[in-house]
């Protein structure tokens, strides 16, 4: 879409290219403004949710399956950490300070912002065909050979090819789709299922997960999966070049070498 500004100055674009000769660095568009803004809001929310989530778990680091569970019942497992409640048997001789008040408040506030941001991302992603264009893998991407190569290359610390600076390989596409359409919805659902009032309006949201304590345990494991994703995500960014990839997510442009004729 031509803007009024560029329409009035038709010569502007050709001035720069006529001066330079040989290969130059040009900045190619990489991420849309909406993807960048939602990415960083989600990043902030994710850290807030992670820190406060850990704080809340510390008040009862035991997990159960089914509807109920207390210190008087057998847990599915217990994390080997101290607790902020003295009635929880942990094996540690001390009790951590209670931080649940602000942790719960920030957890739910960050969850609200993350969910609203996620909705904005999903709706705009559908409208702008972002998912179809940038994330749904092609048939060729999905061959075992291609997927295995994508998996093995970073394990050998091989930097991605120049082509991958402007696009994702099949494995990355599948991973992003899995995080966006499976892990995020599941962590939201299992979180909401723990709300007594929400569960009163939609009781099947708890029943389908196997009960309140099952929902809590699922919430914990999906959060772990998201943290694992975060580690791999950041490792891949570092391998590909931390500043260029992070810069692309901030400015929206990625540097590529281009031959001029």
């Amino acid at each position, binding site marked *: 879409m031509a803007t009024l500004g560029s329409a009035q100055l038709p010569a502007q674009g050709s001035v720069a290219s006529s001066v330079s000769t040989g290969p130059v660095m040009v900045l190619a568009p990489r991420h849309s403004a909406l993807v960048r803004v939602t990415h960083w809001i989600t990043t902030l929310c994710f850290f807030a949710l992670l820190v406060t989530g850990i704080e809340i778990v510390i*008040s*009862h680091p035991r997990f159960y399956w089914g*509807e109920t569970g*207390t210190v008087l019942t057998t847990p599915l497992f217990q994390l080997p950490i101290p607790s902020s409640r003295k009635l929880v048997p942990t094996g540690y001789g001390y009790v951590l300070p209670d931080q649940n008040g602000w942790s*719960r408040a920030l957890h*739910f506030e960050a969850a*609200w912002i993350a969910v609203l941001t996620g909705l904005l991302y999903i709706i705009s992603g559908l409208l702008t065909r972002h998912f179809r264009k940038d994330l749904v893998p092609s048939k060729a991407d999905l061959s075992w050979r291609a997927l295995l190569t994508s998996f093995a290359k970073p394990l050998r610390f091989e930097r991605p090819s120049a082509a991958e600076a402007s696009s994702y390989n099949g494995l990355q596409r599948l991973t992003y789709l899995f995080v966006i359409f499976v892990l995020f919805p599941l962590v939201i659902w299992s979180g909401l299922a723990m709300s*007594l009032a929400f569960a009163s309006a939609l009781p099947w949201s*708890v029943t389908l997960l196997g009960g309140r304590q099952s929902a809590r345990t699922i919430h914990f494991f999906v959060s772990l999966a998201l943290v694992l994703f975060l580690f791999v995500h950041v490792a891949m960014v570092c391998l590909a070049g931390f500043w260029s990839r992070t810069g692309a997510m901030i400015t929206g442009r990625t540097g590529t070498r281009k031959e001029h004729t």
Partner: protein
Amino acid sequence: MIDLSRRKLIVSGLAAAAGASGLAVAAHLAQKYGLVPPDHGGIYGLGETLTYASQRVLTRHSLAREFPRNKISPRPFPNELAPLTEDFKRLQAGGFADWRLSIDGMVHQPALFSIADLKSYPPRSHITELACEEGWSYIAEWIGVPLSHVLHLVGVHPQARYVVYVSMEPDTWDSIDMADALHPQTFLCYGMNGSDLPVAHGGPLRMRLPRQVGYKNIKFITRLTVTDSLKGFGNGCGAVACEYGYAWYAGI
């Protein structure tokens, strides 16, 4: 290189204006329909308000999940109790015969109720889960008189918006809005699993509202005050828990 056209400027200006006026309209409507919690200020006010407003819209009349009798937890976990006061021990020695619940504030007839008075009204029970904000939960049968029954007896003024409930434990009180106060599952609870409510669980009288987490279910209730504003109570955010950073509305 800033690609800022006149069209973009006009569109984003209009969007910002629409957003700002939309927010103002939303805030006005939220106040009007009682969707703003008393602890809406501060950095967490946005989250508290979104949670309270959305759950009020979605769950005003919904019933907490009830369970079959065989799902009752064999060993309900009584959370930590503060040391019992001398006044409490004296009443306990008398079998709580002298325990009184007073109701005052915006009511036509302030009144005093003994436990026997409360037990003389048609008893109600539900088998529901008590869930603590820490993460644990158990299921029990809760027996009592619906708070709405007692509120109808004393006659609540139409402008009433909250019920403040005070424990015999020092510095322990909380409040709920009328939606929860009049909810059929909100009990002045005096029994549990077929017997009197044990002291460890808040006996002789506990507030029981199964759609909010454990800390709203205050033990040892002695006083109810019906009010249209929480300004005069504590620091005005509606509960002593808020003064320790806990949310007033705990449906989540």
